[in-house]
Protein backbone atom coordinates (compact mmCIF):
# COMPACT_ATOMS: atom_id res chain seq x y z
CA UNK A 1 0.00 0.00 0.00
CA UNK A 2 1.78 3.06 -1.20
CA UNK A 3 0.41 6.53 -1.66
CA UNK A 4 2.10 8.24 -4.55
CA UNK A 5 1.82 11.87 -5.53
CA UNK A 6 3.22 12.58 -8.97
CA UNK A 7 3.94 15.98 -10.56
CA UNK A 8 1.03 17.52 -8.74
CA UNK A 9 0.18 21.18 -9.37
CA UNK A 10 -2.77 23.34 -8.49
CA UNK A 11 -3.56 26.82 -9.70
CA UNK A 12 -6.58 29.01 -9.11
CA UNK A 13 -8.05 31.49 -11.53
CA UNK A 14 -9.16 34.68 -9.85
CA UNK A 15 -12.17 36.73 -10.84
CA UNK A 16 -9.98 39.30 -12.58
CA UNK A 17 -8.63 36.52 -14.79
CA UNK A 18 -5.23 36.29 -13.13
CA UNK A 19 -3.95 32.88 -12.21
CA UNK A 20 -2.39 32.01 -8.88
CA UNK A 21 -0.01 29.10 -8.68
CA UNK A 22 -0.94 27.52 -5.38
CA UNK A 23 0.94 24.27 -5.32
CA UNK A 24 3.71 22.27 -6.87
CA UNK A 25 4.97 20.69 -8.90
CA UNK A 26 5.21 18.21 -6.11
CA UNK A 27 6.23 14.55 -5.82
CA UNK A 28 5.89 12.44 -2.72
CA UNK A 29 5.69 8.82 -1.75
CA UNK A 30 4.24 7.65 1.53
CA UNK A 31 4.57 4.04 2.54
CA UNK A 32 2.09 1.86 4.29
CA UNK A 33 1.67 2.64 7.96
CA UNK A 34 3.82 5.74 7.82
CA UNK A 35 3.04 8.90 9.79
CA UNK A 36 3.88 11.93 7.69
CA UNK A 37 3.43 15.51 8.80
CA UNK A 38 3.10 18.27 6.24
CA UNK A 39 4.45 21.51 7.55
CA UNK A 40 4.78 24.87 5.89
CA UNK A 41 4.32 28.61 6.21
CA UNK A 42 0.74 29.82 6.11
CA UNK A 43 -0.73 30.06 2.66
CA UNK A 44 1.68 27.50 1.22
CA UNK A 45 -1.13 25.25 0.09
CA UNK A 46 -0.72 22.43 2.60
CA UNK A 47 -4.45 22.20 3.21
CA UNK A 48 -5.09 22.33 -0.53
CA UNK A 49 -2.67 19.42 -0.96
CA UNK A 50 -4.57 17.38 1.60
CA UNK A 51 -7.93 18.26 0.03
CA UNK A 52 -6.68 17.16 -3.38
CA UNK A 53 -5.52 13.83 -1.95
CA UNK A 54 -8.90 13.48 -0.23
CA UNK A 55 -10.67 14.07 -3.54
CA UNK A 56 -12.39 17.27 -2.47
CA UNK A 57 -10.49 19.31 -5.04
CA UNK A 58 -9.08 18.45 -8.42
CA UNK A 59 -5.43 18.99 -9.21
CA UNK A 60 -4.58 21.22 -12.17
CA UNK A 61 -2.13 18.56 -13.29
CA UNK A 62 -0.48 15.47 -11.92
CA UNK A 63 -1.88 12.38 -10.28
CA UNK A 64 -2.50 10.75 -6.94
CA UNK A 65 -2.39 6.99 -6.77
CA UNK A 66 -2.90 4.45 -4.07
CA UNK A 67 -1.26 1.10 -4.78
CA UNK A 68 -0.81 2.30 -8.37
CA UNK A 69 -4.58 2.86 -8.81
CA UNK A 70 -5.24 6.47 -9.72
CA UNK A 71 -7.48 8.34 -7.33
CA UNK A 72 -10.03 10.85 -8.53
CA UNK A 73 -12.63 12.13 -6.15
CA UNK A 74 -13.45 10.86 -2.67
CA UNK A 75 -12.18 7.35 -2.14
CA UNK A 76 -13.27 4.73 0.39
CA UNK A 77 -9.67 3.98 1.33
CA UNK A 78 -9.18 7.50 2.65
CA UNK A 79 -10.88 9.35 5.44
CA UNK A 80 -10.45 13.00 6.26
CA UNK A 81 -10.51 14.67 9.64
CA UNK A 82 -11.14 18.39 9.65
CA UNK A 83 -10.10 21.14 12.01
CA UNK A 84 -13.39 21.52 13.87
CA UNK A 85 -17.16 21.73 13.69
CA UNK A 86 -17.31 18.73 11.44
CA UNK A 87 -19.60 16.58 13.59
CA UNK A 88 -23.29 16.48 12.71
CA UNK A 89 -24.87 18.30 15.66
CA UNK A 90 -28.25 16.61 15.24
CA UNK A 91 -26.74 13.16 15.63
CA UNK A 92 -25.59 11.39 18.75
CA UNK A 93 -21.96 10.35 19.14
CA UNK A 94 -22.91 6.81 18.10
CA UNK A 95 -24.74 7.94 14.98
CA UNK A 96 -21.96 10.34 14.06
CA UNK A 97 -19.41 7.55 14.20
CA UNK A 98 -21.75 5.23 12.28
CA UNK A 99 -22.44 7.81 9.56
CA UNK A 100 -20.00 6.50 6.97
CA UNK A 101 -21.35 2.97 7.45
CA UNK A 102 -24.93 4.19 7.29
CA UNK A 103 -24.49 5.88 3.92
CA UNK A 104 -22.96 2.65 2.66
CA UNK A 105 -26.17 0.90 3.58
CA UNK A 106 -25.01 -1.21 6.53
CA UNK A 107 -27.90 -2.38 8.69
CA UNK A 108 -28.34 -0.55 11.97
CA UNK A 109 -27.16 -3.29 14.28
CA UNK A 110 -24.03 -3.93 12.28
CA UNK A 111 -23.02 -0.29 11.99
CA UNK A 112 -23.68 0.38 15.66
CA UNK A 113 -21.55 -2.59 16.62
CA UNK A 114 -18.64 -1.30 14.55
CA UNK A 115 -19.17 2.26 15.77
CA UNK A 116 -19.07 1.12 19.40
CA UNK A 117 -15.76 -0.60 18.76
CA UNK A 118 -14.21 2.63 17.52
CA UNK A 119 -15.82 4.74 20.21
CA UNK A 120 -14.10 2.47 22.68
CA UNK A 121 -10.83 2.77 20.79
CA UNK A 122 -10.85 6.57 21.15
CA UNK A 123 -11.82 6.25 24.82
CA UNK A 124 -15.36 7.57 24.66
CA UNK A 125 -17.33 4.57 25.85
CA UNK A 126 -20.31 5.77 27.82
CA UNK A 127 -20.82 8.85 25.63
CA UNK A 128 -22.60 7.04 22.77
CA UNK A 129 -25.90 8.77 23.37
CA UNK A 130 -24.48 12.26 23.92
CA UNK A 131 -24.82 15.04 21.38
CA UNK A 132 -21.68 16.78 20.09
CA UNK A 133 -22.51 20.07 21.85
CA UNK A 134 -22.32 18.25 25.17
CA UNK A 135 -18.65 17.35 24.60
CA UNK A 136 -15.42 19.30 24.95
CA UNK A 137 -13.36 20.23 21.88
CA UNK A 138 -10.95 17.38 22.46
CA UNK A 139 -13.71 14.83 22.87
CA UNK A 140 -15.39 16.03 19.70
CA UNK A 141 -12.18 15.53 17.74
CA UNK A 142 -11.98 12.02 19.14
CA UNK A 143 -15.46 11.39 17.79
CA UNK A 144 -14.27 12.71 14.43
CA UNK A 145 -11.31 10.32 14.55
CA UNK A 146 -13.59 7.41 15.42
CA UNK A 147 -15.95 8.37 12.60
CA UNK A 148 -13.05 8.36 10.13
CA UNK A 149 -11.68 5.05 11.42
CA UNK A 150 -15.08 3.36 11.33
CA UNK A 151 -15.09 3.13 7.54
CA UNK A 152 -11.77 1.31 7.91
CA UNK A 153 -9.76 3.42 5.51
CA UNK A 154 -6.15 2.76 4.60
CA UNK A 155 -5.13 6.40 4.88
CA UNK A 156 -6.11 9.06 7.40
CA UNK A 157 -5.92 12.64 6.18
CA UNK A 158 -5.84 15.06 9.06
CA UNK A 159 -6.10 18.80 8.50
CA UNK A 160 -4.83 20.57 11.62
CA UNK A 161 -7.18 18.41 13.67
CA UNK A 162 -6.01 19.78 17.01
CA UNK A 163 -5.62 23.38 15.92
CA UNK A 164 -8.63 24.64 17.82
CA UNK A 165 -7.96 22.72 21.03
CA UNK A 166 -6.24 24.27 24.03
CA UNK A 167 -2.58 23.39 24.59
CA UNK A 168 -2.98 20.87 27.41
CA UNK A 169 -5.74 18.89 25.77
CA UNK A 170 -3.75 19.09 22.59
CA UNK A 171 -0.74 17.26 24.05
CA UNK A 172 -3.05 14.61 25.38
CA UNK A 173 -4.75 14.21 22.00
CA UNK A 174 -1.37 13.84 20.31
CA UNK A 175 -0.40 11.03 22.70
CA UNK A 176 -3.72 9.31 22.17
CA UNK A 177 -3.53 9.66 18.41
CA UNK A 178 -0.16 7.92 18.46
CA UNK A 179 -1.61 5.09 20.54
CA UNK A 180 -4.49 4.72 18.10
CA UNK A 181 -2.07 4.82 15.21
CA UNK A 182 0.08 2.13 16.77
CA UNK A 183 -2.99 -0.05 17.26
CA UNK A 184 -4.50 0.46 13.81
CA UNK A 185 -1.36 1.08 11.73
CA UNK A 186 -3.04 3.44 9.31
CA UNK A 187 -1.04 5.60 6.99
CA UNK A 188 -1.40 9.13 8.31
CA UNK A 189 -0.97 12.42 6.48
CA UNK A 190 -1.17 15.15 9.04
CA UNK A 191 -1.17 18.84 8.13
CA UNK A 192 -0.07 21.21 10.86
CA UNK A 193 1.52 24.60 11.31
CA UNK A 194 3.04 23.56 14.64
CA UNK A 195 6.69 22.50 14.45
CA UNK A 196 6.43 20.92 17.88
CA UNK A 197 3.44 18.84 16.87
CA UNK A 198 5.15 17.65 13.70
CA UNK A 199 8.37 16.65 15.47
CA UNK A 200 6.39 14.90 18.20
CA UNK A 201 4.23 12.88 15.83
CA UNK A 202 5.88 12.22 12.52
CA UNK A 203 8.11 9.56 11.05
CA UNK A 204 8.91 12.09 8.37
CA UNK A 205 8.23 15.81 8.18
CA UNK A 206 7.57 17.22 4.74
CA UNK A 207 8.45 20.92 4.79
CA UNK A 208 6.78 22.92 2.06
CA UNK A 209 8.03 26.16 0.57
CA UNK A 210 5.90 29.27 0.53
CA UNK A 211 3.45 29.60 -2.33
CA UNK A 212 3.44 27.83 -4.70
CA UNK A 213 4.08 25.05 -2.21
CA UNK A 214 6.83 22.67 -3.26
CA UNK A 215 8.78 20.26 -1.12
CA UNK A 216 11.64 22.18 0.48
CA UNK A 217 12.97 19.31 2.50
CA UNK A 218 11.92 16.03 4.00
CA UNK A 219 13.18 15.60 7.55
CA UNK A 220 13.11 12.10 9.00
CA UNK A 221 12.52 11.83 12.74
CA UNK A 222 14.26 8.65 13.85
CA UNK A 223 13.04 8.69 17.47
CA UNK A 224 10.83 5.99 18.84
CA UNK A 225 7.50 6.76 20.43
CA UNK A 226 6.69 7.98 23.00
CA UNK A 227 9.00 10.92 22.45
CA UNK A 228 10.31 13.10 25.17
CA UNK A 229 9.96 16.76 24.24
CA UNK A 230 12.87 17.84 26.46
CA UNK A 231 15.36 15.29 25.13
CA UNK A 232 18.35 17.06 23.47
CA UNK A 233 18.08 15.29 20.11
CA UNK A 234 14.36 16.08 19.95
CA UNK A 235 15.11 19.72 20.68
CA UNK A 236 17.80 19.60 18.03
CA UNK A 237 15.42 18.39 15.27
CA UNK A 238 12.83 20.87 16.41
CA UNK A 239 15.28 23.73 16.17
CA UNK A 240 16.37 22.59 12.71
CA UNK A 241 12.83 22.34 11.37
CA UNK A 242 11.89 25.65 12.91
CA UNK A 243 14.83 27.29 11.16
CA UNK A 244 13.73 25.89 7.80
CA UNK A 245 10.21 27.21 8.30
CA UNK A 246 11.33 30.61 9.50
CA UNK A 247 13.67 30.90 6.57
CA UNK A 248 10.82 30.06 4.23
CA UNK A 249 8.38 32.57 5.70
CA UNK A 250 10.96 35.36 5.69
CA UNK A 251 12.13 35.06 2.08
CA UNK A 252 10.74 37.87 0.01
CA UNK A 253 9.27 39.79 2.92
CA UNK A 254 10.48 43.39 2.88
CA UNK A 255 12.70 43.33 5.97
Amino acid at each position, binding site marked *: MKLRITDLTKSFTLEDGNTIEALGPLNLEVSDGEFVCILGPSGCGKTTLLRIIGGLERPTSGTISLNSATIEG*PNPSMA*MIFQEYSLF*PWRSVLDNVAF*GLEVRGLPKEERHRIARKYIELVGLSGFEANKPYELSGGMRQRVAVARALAIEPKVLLMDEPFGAIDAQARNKMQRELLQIWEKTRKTVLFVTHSVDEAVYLADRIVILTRRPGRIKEIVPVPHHHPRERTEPSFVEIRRYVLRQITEESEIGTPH
Partner: protein
Amino acid sequence: MKRWTGIVVPLMIMAGWEVAAILISNPFILPRLGTIVEVLMRPADDLLGTGSLLYNAWRSVQRVGLGFLVAALIGIPCGIAMGRYRWLNQLMDTTLQALRPIPPLAWVPLALAWFRIGLTSIVFIIFIGAFFPILINTIDGVKSVKKTWMEVALTLGTSEFRLLTKVILPGAAPIVWTGLRLGFGIAWMTVVAAEMLPGTISGLGYLIMYAYNFGQVNVIIAGMVVIGLIGIAIDLIFKQGEKVWFGWRSLER
Protein backbone atom coordinates in the same frame (compact mmCIF):
# COMPACT_ATOMS: atom_id res chain seq x y z
CA MET B 1 -43.92 35.08 38.74
CA LYS B 2 -42.95 35.96 35.18
CA ARG B 3 -45.61 33.70 33.73
CA TRP B 4 -48.21 35.75 35.51
CA THR B 5 -47.12 39.18 34.31
CA GLY B 6 -48.37 38.43 30.79
CA ILE B 7 -51.93 38.21 32.01
CA VAL B 8 -52.00 41.62 33.75
CA VAL B 9 -52.63 43.72 30.66
CA PRO B 10 -55.42 41.50 29.27
CA LEU B 11 -57.14 41.70 32.66
CA MET B 12 -56.86 45.47 32.67
CA ILE B 13 -58.24 45.67 29.13
CA MET B 14 -61.16 43.48 30.13
CA ALA B 15 -61.89 45.59 33.20
CA GLY B 16 -61.72 48.79 31.12
CA TRP B 17 -63.90 47.17 28.51
CA GLU B 18 -66.58 46.22 30.98
CA VAL B 19 -66.63 49.71 32.47
CA ALA B 20 -66.84 51.29 29.02
CA ALA B 21 -69.57 48.84 27.94
CA ILE B 22 -71.67 49.75 30.95
CA LEU B 23 -71.17 53.46 30.33
CA ILE B 24 -71.88 53.29 26.59
CA SER B 25 -74.68 50.84 27.12
CA ASN B 26 -75.00 49.95 23.45
CA PRO B 27 -74.34 46.30 22.50
CA PHE B 28 -73.93 47.26 18.83
CA ILE B 29 -70.81 49.21 19.71
CA LEU B 30 -69.41 47.53 22.78
CA PRO B 31 -71.17 44.45 24.12
CA ARG B 32 -70.83 43.44 27.77
CA LEU B 33 -68.15 40.85 28.47
CA GLY B 34 -70.80 38.48 29.76
CA THR B 35 -72.53 38.29 26.38
CA ILE B 36 -69.25 37.40 24.67
CA VAL B 37 -68.38 34.78 27.27
CA GLU B 38 -71.87 33.37 26.80
CA VAL B 39 -71.11 32.71 23.13
CA LEU B 40 -67.69 31.25 23.94
CA MET B 41 -69.10 28.94 26.62
CA ARG B 42 -71.39 27.24 24.15
CA PRO B 43 -69.03 26.57 21.24
CA ALA B 44 -71.09 23.71 19.84
CA ASP B 45 -74.35 25.68 19.59
CA ASP B 46 -75.54 26.99 16.27
CA LEU B 47 -75.01 30.72 15.76
CA LEU B 48 -77.42 32.66 13.55
CA GLY B 49 -77.92 29.57 11.38
CA THR B 50 -74.25 29.51 10.28
CA GLY B 51 -73.22 26.51 12.33
CA SER B 52 -71.40 26.52 15.65
CA LEU B 53 -68.13 28.21 16.61
CA LEU B 54 -66.42 24.83 16.61
CA TYR B 55 -67.81 23.90 13.22
CA ASN B 56 -66.66 27.16 11.66
CA ALA B 57 -63.28 27.01 13.38
CA TRP B 58 -62.84 23.47 12.06
CA ARG B 59 -63.67 24.58 8.53
CA SER B 60 -61.11 27.38 8.75
CA VAL B 61 -58.46 25.04 10.12
CA GLN B 62 -59.15 22.53 7.34
CA ARG B 63 -58.78 25.19 4.66
CA VAL B 64 -55.64 26.65 6.13
CA GLY B 65 -54.23 23.15 6.57
CA LEU B 66 -54.85 22.34 2.93
CA GLY B 67 -53.35 25.57 1.58
CA PHE B 68 -50.43 25.28 3.96
CA LEU B 69 -49.77 21.69 2.94
CA VAL B 70 -49.72 22.61 -0.73
CA ALA B 71 -47.39 25.54 0.03
CA ALA B 72 -45.02 23.27 2.00
CA LEU B 73 -45.10 20.53 -0.64
CA ILE B 74 -44.13 23.01 -3.34
CA GLY B 75 -42.10 25.50 -1.28
CA ILE B 76 -39.72 23.06 0.40
CA PRO B 77 -38.55 21.20 -2.73
CA CYS B 78 -38.22 24.50 -4.65
CA GLY B 79 -36.31 26.01 -1.72
CA ILE B 80 -33.95 23.05 -1.56
CA ALA B 81 -33.22 23.28 -5.27
CA MET B 82 -32.67 27.04 -5.10
CA GLY B 83 -30.52 26.80 -1.98
CA ARG B 84 -28.43 24.08 -3.54
CA TYR B 85 -27.95 25.49 -7.03
CA ARG B 86 -26.76 29.07 -7.20
CA TRP B 87 -27.63 29.53 -10.85
CA LEU B 88 -31.22 28.59 -10.14
CA ASN B 89 -31.38 31.02 -7.26
CA GLN B 90 -29.97 33.81 -9.43
CA LEU B 91 -32.39 32.93 -12.19
CA MET B 92 -35.43 33.12 -9.90
CA ASP B 93 -34.44 35.78 -7.42
CA THR B 94 -35.79 38.90 -9.17
CA THR B 95 -39.12 37.24 -9.88
CA LEU B 96 -39.49 36.15 -6.28
CA GLN B 97 -38.54 39.53 -4.87
CA ALA B 98 -41.17 41.12 -7.11
CA LEU B 99 -43.94 38.65 -6.24
CA ARG B 100 -43.25 38.50 -2.54
CA PRO B 101 -44.51 41.95 -1.47
CA ILE B 102 -47.89 41.43 -3.16
CA PRO B 103 -50.33 40.72 -0.32
CA PRO B 104 -52.24 37.43 -0.60
CA LEU B 105 -55.54 39.31 -0.75
CA ALA B 106 -54.44 41.22 -3.85
CA TRP B 107 -54.61 37.85 -5.60
CA VAL B 108 -58.31 37.50 -4.82
CA PRO B 109 -59.70 38.88 -8.10
CA LEU B 110 -57.35 36.70 -10.11
CA ALA B 111 -58.14 33.69 -7.95
CA LEU B 112 -61.84 34.22 -8.56
CA ALA B 113 -61.27 34.62 -12.27
CA TRP B 114 -59.18 31.47 -12.48
CA PHE B 115 -60.81 29.14 -10.00
CA ARG B 116 -64.28 30.66 -9.47
CA ILE B 117 -65.81 31.10 -6.08
CA GLY B 118 -65.09 28.12 -3.86
CA LEU B 119 -62.52 26.06 -2.04
CA THR B 120 -59.87 26.22 -4.76
CA SER B 121 -59.78 30.00 -4.65
CA ILE B 122 -59.44 30.09 -0.89
CA VAL B 123 -56.75 27.42 -0.87
CA PHE B 124 -54.90 29.31 -3.59
CA ILE B 125 -54.90 32.51 -1.56
CA ILE B 126 -53.72 30.69 1.57
CA PHE B 127 -51.06 29.04 -0.55
CA ILE B 128 -49.79 32.46 -1.67
CA GLY B 129 -49.60 33.57 1.95
CA ALA B 130 -47.71 30.54 3.22
CA PHE B 131 -45.54 29.87 0.19
CA PHE B 132 -43.01 32.72 0.39
CA PRO B 133 -41.94 32.39 4.03
CA ILE B 134 -41.55 28.64 3.52
CA LEU B 135 -39.61 29.03 0.28
CA ILE B 136 -37.31 31.77 1.50
CA ASN B 137 -36.50 30.09 4.79
CA THR B 138 -35.84 26.80 3.04
CA ILE B 139 -33.38 28.54 0.73
CA ASP B 140 -31.67 30.13 3.73
CA GLY B 141 -31.70 26.85 5.62
CA VAL B 142 -30.02 24.95 2.81
CA LYS B 143 -27.45 27.72 2.41
CA SER B 144 -26.71 27.59 6.13
CA VAL B 145 -25.70 23.93 5.96
CA LYS B 146 -21.99 23.95 6.73
CA LYS B 147 -19.66 23.12 3.89
CA THR B 148 -17.60 20.98 6.26
CA TRP B 149 -20.60 18.73 6.98
CA MET B 150 -21.03 18.11 3.28
CA GLU B 151 -17.33 17.52 2.73
CA VAL B 152 -17.16 15.06 5.61
CA ALA B 153 -20.12 13.22 4.14
CA LEU B 154 -18.53 13.16 0.68
CA THR B 155 -15.21 11.83 1.94
CA LEU B 156 -17.10 9.13 3.83
CA GLY B 157 -18.57 7.98 0.54
CA THR B 158 -21.99 9.63 0.52
CA SER B 159 -23.94 9.66 -2.73
CA GLU B 160 -25.64 12.83 -3.97
CA PHE B 161 -29.05 11.54 -2.90
CA ARG B 162 -27.90 10.49 0.57
CA LEU B 163 -26.14 13.83 0.93
CA LEU B 164 -29.56 15.40 0.50
CA THR B 165 -31.40 13.16 2.93
CA LYS B 166 -28.67 12.69 5.54
CA VAL B 167 -26.95 16.07 5.61
CA ILE B 168 -28.73 18.87 3.76
CA LEU B 169 -32.24 18.15 4.99
CA PRO B 170 -31.41 17.60 8.67
CA GLY B 171 -28.94 20.49 8.59
CA ALA B 172 -31.48 22.85 7.06
CA ALA B 173 -34.44 21.54 9.06
CA PRO B 174 -34.42 24.09 11.92
CA ILE B 175 -34.65 27.04 9.55
CA VAL B 176 -37.16 25.28 7.32
CA TRP B 177 -39.23 24.72 10.46
CA THR B 178 -39.09 28.44 11.23
CA GLY B 179 -40.34 29.04 7.69
CA LEU B 180 -43.23 26.65 8.26
CA ARG B 181 -44.12 28.44 11.49
CA LEU B 182 -44.08 31.88 9.86
CA GLY B 183 -45.92 30.51 6.83
CA PHE B 184 -48.63 29.02 8.97
CA GLY B 185 -49.04 32.30 10.84
CA ILE B 186 -49.58 34.22 7.64
CA ALA B 187 -51.81 31.49 6.23
CA TRP B 188 -54.01 31.68 9.30
CA MET B 189 -54.43 35.43 8.94
CA THR B 190 -55.12 34.99 5.26
CA VAL B 191 -57.81 32.33 5.64
CA VAL B 192 -59.91 34.51 7.89
CA ALA B 193 -59.70 37.39 5.45
CA ALA B 194 -60.38 35.11 2.51
CA GLU B 195 -63.50 33.73 4.16
CA MET B 196 -64.96 37.22 4.26
CA LEU B 197 -65.16 37.17 0.47
CA PRO B 198 -68.43 36.57 -1.29
CA GLY B 199 -69.29 32.97 -1.95
CA THR B 200 -68.05 31.44 1.27
CA ILE B 201 -70.67 29.98 3.56
CA SER B 202 -68.58 28.76 6.49
CA GLY B 203 -65.44 29.47 8.47
CA LEU B 204 -64.55 31.92 11.21
CA GLY B 205 -64.07 34.79 8.74
CA TYR B 206 -67.51 34.12 7.29
CA LEU B 207 -69.02 33.84 10.76
CA ILE B 208 -67.81 37.23 11.97
CA MET B 209 -68.75 38.93 8.70
CA TYR B 210 -72.19 37.34 8.82
CA ALA B 211 -72.66 38.33 12.46
CA TYR B 212 -71.86 41.91 11.44
CA ASN B 213 -74.88 41.91 9.13
CA PHE B 214 -77.01 41.11 12.14
CA GLY B 215 -75.26 43.56 14.42
CA GLN B 216 -74.19 40.71 16.70
CA VAL B 217 -71.01 42.33 17.96
CA ASN B 218 -70.65 39.80 20.78
CA VAL B 219 -70.48 36.98 18.20
CA ILE B 220 -67.94 38.97 16.17
CA ILE B 221 -65.70 39.39 19.18
CA ALA B 222 -66.13 35.78 20.29
CA GLY B 223 -65.07 34.77 16.77
CA MET B 224 -62.03 37.02 16.98
CA VAL B 225 -61.07 35.49 20.31
CA VAL B 226 -61.24 32.01 18.82
CA ILE B 227 -59.14 33.13 15.84
CA GLY B 228 -56.52 34.46 18.25
CA LEU B 229 -56.54 31.37 20.46
CA ILE B 230 -56.13 28.97 17.57
CA GLY B 231 -53.28 31.12 16.23
CA ILE B 232 -51.50 31.00 19.59
CA ALA B 233 -52.08 27.27 19.98
CA ILE B 234 -50.61 26.44 16.60
CA ASP B 235 -47.64 28.72 17.15
CA LEU B 236 -46.98 27.00 20.48
CA ILE B 237 -47.03 23.62 18.80
CA PHE B 238 -44.43 24.82 16.31
CA LYS B 239 -42.27 26.30 19.05
CA GLN B 240 -42.48 23.11 21.08
CA GLY B 241 -41.43 21.10 18.03
CA GLU B 242 -38.47 23.43 17.60
CA LYS B 243 -37.39 22.84 21.17
CA VAL B 244 -37.77 19.08 20.98
CA TRP B 245 -36.24 18.43 17.56
CA PHE B 246 -33.90 21.31 16.86
CA GLY B 247 -32.45 22.14 20.24
CA TRP B 248 -29.02 21.39 18.84
CA ARG B 249 -29.07 24.54 16.78
CA SER B 250 -29.05 26.97 19.70
CA LEU B 251 -26.78 24.76 21.80
CA GLU B 252 -24.15 24.21 19.16
CA ARG B 253 -20.87 25.95 19.81
